[in-house]
């Protein structure tokens, strides 16, 4: 788009809000074509991989947790599993269930937060959930109650909701108290009903019509909806052993971002991780109830509209409540909190799990004294970052005629639908649209 004076047009929106972290979006148009679309993450780097080196492996879960306050379990779980693989520790089935339970708690807390507090206000022209609560007091309060249930479960299993303290290499530091979990069962039964109502409420939203031909990537597990383990599945049919993740997906550094971006090696192309990818690839493993609600609210594996991710999240909340209830009702109980390590082994190991925002990959190398020699962490948002930019490139020509302010709002909405976590990818998203020839700062 050119202005009357012939200069390309510049639009700036200083801060993209209701996302986790600090970044900016820089957009330049030449005619109707966007020539530059940078999701610029300027969250200051915190160098986790570097300062993990030389630390005892027991510290890794607590430290990597601090990458992100919204999904600490994703970091802790992926770290302890990678380290367990190095140490040759295989946890008991009962411990695995409790770990899956704590991961369900995090999915609930994180998804419900995004649905109600960050994303839903977009659909009603509200600035925040606090404003939305004036129009929909019961719905917002229901959201808060759901979130609280997720957090209560995190507290029982982990000691606290943000940066829980209980995940250990080999299991848990201390087993949760059976009676505390039992007491939560009736609450979770109510939660399941609320989660179902929340999903139905969201079905009434009006979604922008954007669609793209995505390559979806998620873990997949033969027996269950993959959360804490599985092999990698791509929507083109490729199956990739988790151990070869790095041969198939590569991180590149781009000048406008302090987060590294991922590409698929085979195609050089972008890919999509997160709830929509999981629904796409693992739909059949949802519970019958979750599937019924999914078809009722209009989300299924054919969905290619990122704005509808809010429905995918809502279905995963329903699923997580059901799965949590199933685990809490099991009577089998671990015989010990954790397996003690016999001898420390040097070696290298990986793990990948499904964080609320998508696939997360960790690799560590440990020396013979149990100290970390090398650490690599690939969070979901850095994998989605290139996909977000590519979506914006597709969207922009179709909205080039709109007012600058509306373009910015449309772009923000698209970015927000991904639930980007910039703290993860290194946080503050700011949209700058350049159309007057000035380079965005």
């Amino acid at each position, binding site marked *: 788009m050119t202005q009357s004076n012939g200069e390309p047009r510049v639009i700036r929106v200083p801060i993209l809000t*209701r996302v986790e972290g600090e970044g900016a979006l820089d957009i330049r148009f030449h005619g109707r074509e966007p020539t530059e679309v940078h999701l610029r993450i300027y969250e200051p780097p915190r160098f986790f991989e570097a300062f993990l080196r030389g630390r*005892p492996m027991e510290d890794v879960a607590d430290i990597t947790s601090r990458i992100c306050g919204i999904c600490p379990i994703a970091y802790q779980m992926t770290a302890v599993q990678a380290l367990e693989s190095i140490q040759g520790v295989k946890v008991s089935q009962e411990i695995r269930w409790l770990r899956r339970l704590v991961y369900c708690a995090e999915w609930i807390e994180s998804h419900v937060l995004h649905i109600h507090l960050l994303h839903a206000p977009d659909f009603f022209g509200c600035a*925040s959930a606090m404003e939305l609560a004036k129009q929909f007091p019961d719905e917002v309060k229901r959201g808060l109650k759901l979130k609280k249930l997720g957090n209560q479960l995190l507290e029982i299993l982990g000691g606290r909701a943000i940066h829980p303290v209980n995940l250990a290499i080999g299991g848990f530091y201390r087993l949760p108290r059976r009676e505390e979990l039992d007491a939560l069962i009736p609450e979770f039964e109510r939660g399941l009903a609320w989660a179902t109502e929340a999903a139905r409420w969201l079905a009434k939203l009006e979604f922008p019509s954007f669609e793209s031909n995505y390559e979806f990537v998620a873990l997949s597990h033969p027996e269950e909806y993959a959360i804490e383990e599985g092999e990698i599945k791509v929507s083109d049919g490729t199956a990739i052993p988790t151990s070869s993740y790095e041969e198939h997906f590569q991180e590149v550094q781009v000048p406008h971002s302090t987060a590294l971006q991922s590409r698929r090696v085979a195609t050089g192309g972008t890919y999509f991780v997160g709830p929509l990818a999981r629904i796409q690839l693992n739909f059949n493993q949802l519970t019958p109830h979750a599937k019924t609600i999914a078809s009722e609210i209009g989300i299924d594996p054919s969905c290619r509209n990122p704005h509808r991710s809010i429905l995918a999240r809502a279905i995963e909340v329903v699923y997580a409540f059901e799965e949590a209830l199933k685990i809490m009702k099991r009577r089998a109980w671990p015989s010990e909190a954790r397996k003690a390590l016999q001898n420390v082994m040097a070696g290298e190991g990986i793990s990948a799990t499904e964080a609320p925002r998508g696939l997360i990959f960790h690799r560590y190398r440990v020396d013979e004294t149990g100290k970390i020699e090398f650490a690599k962490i690939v969070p979901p948002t850095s994998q989605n970052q290139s996909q977000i930019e590519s979506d914006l490139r597709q969207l922009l020509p179709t909205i080039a005629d709109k007012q600058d302010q509306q373009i910015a709002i449309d772009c923000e909405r698209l970015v927000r639908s991904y639930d980007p976590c910039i703290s993860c990818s290194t946080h503050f998203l700011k949209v700058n649209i350049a159309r007057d020839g000035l380079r965005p700062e």
Partner: protein
Amino acid sequence: MKSKPKIAIIKFASCDGCQLTLLDAEDELLAIADAVDLAHFAEASSRLDAGPYDVAIVEGSITTEDDRLRLLRLRDECRWMVTIGACATSGGIQALRNFADHEEFIRAVYATPETIHSLATSTPIASHVRVDFELRGCPVDKSQLLEVLSSLIAGHRPRTSTESVCQPCKRKGTICVVVAQGIPCLGPITQSGCGSICPAFDRGCYGCFGPTVQPNMAGHSQGVLLPRMSERDAVNLLRGFNAAAPSFQQESVRLWQITQTRDSTR
């Protein structure tokens, strides 16, 4: 403070966990949003009102020149400044860079380091500007944060306990992990506020609320840590989420020097 204080919640280098604590106050959030004017809270609202503010609640540490300048501007725009969390009050986990070669850290994470602008240290907010109240924790504790907010609403200075993690631990009836299980624990030298969670989960305190007032650091190392762990491991334990808090830092450096002298005389 008169009716509805105008509040800004501002972030520097951090994980968002501390401001998330406010969103985790599910029972109180809507009432708080009514009682105060949340004028700038980017994580939760697209309404971003410019200053001046009555109170700036600050999360995160200073790790870039841009952030340092942003903080100076913010300080000019707010009457009171409250810092929340270990990042803001001591530099956070990212202050581990203060002990290492920063250039090397950048290279370890990023292939082309030239485009990464970052300071060699991570420093707390109070080393740059006047701070009126500091709330500890990694993350801050929800009830303490609510206490701070209600004090601000009522217009008086918040108060938080300065006792050590040991006292609430005893009151809770947790059996001491040092005595009963021989687990090294930072509880005696760490400020309470977390609810003494770790010992209740059969593990030692890792100091996420930072040093208590006038902790006996050397005595603690001698009596609690070193009988149960090497100096090197004690250095790592002290270099956690409050590594750059002065008492923790001095003690970790002292213990580190002991290991160095011993290595060189071998």
